[in-house]
């Protein structure tokens, strides 16, 4: 294909000139023009009063609160899974349709299967958590001597030891009353990530902290007219589903305004 005809690609695509966007040049520009984004400021939302758990008992709550904060720990910039409300998110999920095994094919006979065959336990997610946490606690109590005898064991471990237990679970090194520990770990990890990044209406991602951390804007209904501003930083506040009915603009005329400090390319 000739040079001229290559350029035609973009004429055909209606974006003549866009192909001139060279990453190096862009980077330099972006570095200079980068505004301090409002979107990244609310890094540590005020802890709201926690709603009572519907599913978890005290033993389970203690495990979950300790474990999810090791999976997504707080740091100096962004809160962790507990600060984002992930325990409450998982609790509501397990109390609801997901936890009760909705949409799960649940007929036997049951067999271990191969990794390529996916989840093969007879347990619903709620039963999986209940069984696994109780079993883990019994096993840990044999090793943890400090603290009150009946206090939940995992929560009493040091952070490093907690990480060690989680790594053992992940590696499938434990038997949790017949549950392969890796199956439980993967479910816990997946649910923790869901709670950190799903819409706040599910109880996690409090104040959209997960979205702010990465720069995901949430439930906007349109980027037409701006997605071709290649390389431009999106600095607007994220929007949750709860906010969306007030701010929802389906047509380009109603697009949210852009931060004036942002360079436009064209």
């Amino acid at each position: 294909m000739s040079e001229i005809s290559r350029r035609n690609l973009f004429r055909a695509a209606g974006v003549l000139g866009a192909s001139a966007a060279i990453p190096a040049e862009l980077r330099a520009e972006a570095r200079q023009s980068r505004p301090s984004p409002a979107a990244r400021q609310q890094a540590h939302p005020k802890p709201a009063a926690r709603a009572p758990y519907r599913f978890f008992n005290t033993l389970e709550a203690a495990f979950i609160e300790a474990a999810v904060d090791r999976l997504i720990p707080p740091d100096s910039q962004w809160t962790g899974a507990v600060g984002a409300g992930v325990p409450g998110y998982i609790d509501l999920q397990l109390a609801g349709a997901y936890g009760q095994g909705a949409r799960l094919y649940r007929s036997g006979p049951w067999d271990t299967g191969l990794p390529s065959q996916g989840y093969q336990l007879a347990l619903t997610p709620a039963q999986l958590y209940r069984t696994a946490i109780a079993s883990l606690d019994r096993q840990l109590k044999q090793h943890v001597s400090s603290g009150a005898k009946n206090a939940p064991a995992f929560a009493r471990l040091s952070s490093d030891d907690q990480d060690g237990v989680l790594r053992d679970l992940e590696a499938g090194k434990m038997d949790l009353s017949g549950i392969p520990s890796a199956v439980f770990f993967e479910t816990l990890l997946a649910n923790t990530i869901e709670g950190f990044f799903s819409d706040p209406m599910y109880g996690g991602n409090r104040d959209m902290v997960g979205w702010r951390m990465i720069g995901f804007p949430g439930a906007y209904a349109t980027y037409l007219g701006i997605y071709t501003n290649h390389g431009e930083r999106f600095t607007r506040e994220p929007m949750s589903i709860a906010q969306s009915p007030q701010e929802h603009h389906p047509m380009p005329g109603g697009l949210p305004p852009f931060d004036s400090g942002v360079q436009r390319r064209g």
Partner: protein
Amino acid sequence: MARTLPSVDVVFVGMGFTAAIIARELKDSSVKMVGLERGRARNTVPDFQSPSMHDELAFAVRHGLMQDLSQETVTFRNTPDQKALPMRQLGSFLPGTDLGGAGVHWNGQTFRFQPEDFRLRSHHEERYGRDIIAEELTIQDWGLTYEDLEPYYDRFEYLLGVGGYAGNVGGEIRPGGNPFEAKRSRDYPNPPTAPAYLGVLFAKAAMELGYSPYQVPSSNMTRAYTNPEGVRLEPCMVCGYCERFGCEHFAKSSPQTTLLPVVLQQPNFALRTNAHVTRVNLTPDGKHATGVTYIDLATGQETIQPAELVVLSAFAFHNPRLMLLSGIGKSYDPSTGEGNVGRNYAYQTMGSVSLFYDEDVELNQFMGAGALGTVISDYVSDNFDHSKLGFIGGAYICAYTTGARPIEYHPVPPGTPRWGLAWKQAVARYYNHTGGLQVHGQSCARRTNYVDLDPTYKDAFGQPLLRITFDFPENDLRMSHYVTDRAGEIAERMGASQVVVNPRTAPYSVVPYQTTHNTGGAIMGADPKTSACNRYGQSWDVPNVFVTGTALFPQNASYNPTDTVGALAYWTADAIKTRYLSSPAPLVQP
């Protein structure tokens, strides 16, 4: 006791794109039609509206619009000597349900297959000799040609309002389009999408290497469009919630936005939802269908719908399954190679390349649309010389920007821990600075890849589940390696600080999502011994049963299937309308 309803001329099993097309094509005939759909009725308003539609957890992760596995699933194993187990959670593929089927939550990437795809075996034998095709591959010719289908591709693309820039109109190769595409009779109805940032970076690198990038033909509207049926679509808003979601903006072509508004007004068509079909009823000699039996899910009532003609339009799983449950054709046996139903189950061989950029390159992949992508076809099908490569087939390489919803999309470079502080910081660091290339590859049929009825597991209605036996043939793994390496070379020129190449590897697993491009099981062909249907989708064994959709594909090509699925539905409809109705008999003599 089953209740029996008054007879109709045509009954459809499943109301997705294919059924809607055939029902529409028969609008002027005197035939009376009933469409049976197991799911509920639904429409753009109120069912797909914002803000509730923009919910990643409900729709992308919990699969709110997809088949409910507690009612019906498939069983799976990699090889015939393994024990198949039920797919208990959705993963690798996401079959649709409810009115409109998967056409509601598809992406809208709308590619035609190439001429050699329809003559796969003959083409390769002619060009390279027989030895190039590995012994285990059971690839076949379709029994029809690209030229047969061209007018029907055209109809379907104008129905959908596809936006693209044609690379070959009437034999004239046009720069800027796909130079490898076969001759099309006219332009796309709408202009192409404007590329996203990643697409521009890709196009530039690909052109430097001498490839021919173009914009993916898109069924997300690039402008307001009224289709030949008089149904109007609106421009795509690039909302980033496309695949796995319904479109709130009337902008993604779906049965609801292109056809159902007119089909549902036809006096000769009636829709019945919550109607789960359990079998096709045959005459005692097994040679003629008398209608179907379904369960009315609202009442639990078993119901017989007598019909002169049965159209199986229930996607690749349910079509062959219903045939086997009803005794239509012979179940394929891999040990003997005999049996015409269930053979040649194929899929899609997906590789990828990840590109990790410096923190000041804002890729904004969340501003996406289902079919927003920049692609090359230089490594599709036989567009490159295979004589020294040790495999046949190919893949397209595409930089897609379909949306980057964070529960599922939070890429980190290899070597990053899977959780903990380092993981969290890497997610924050890389989310908006990571891109990917998709290597969307062909899937050859293989002797031991097939579907049949599971001997153990049953659905909620007490019927055996469909059993899938599948793993990637060596041929396809080699293909994926080769083309993904080429994609890696392009990626190396795209300005990323780190490039990671991920070709497809075995074994195939039902856990991670790959595509819902499951094909075969009721394939078309020229020989009743090695195909379930003739070139019109008509069952060889029970000629008043027609099959639609990907189940008809003898193997899968590099491209996404739906343009071909729609074209085939128009082709079948034409054969029914102009030939079958006046003399209901086999349209092809074996």
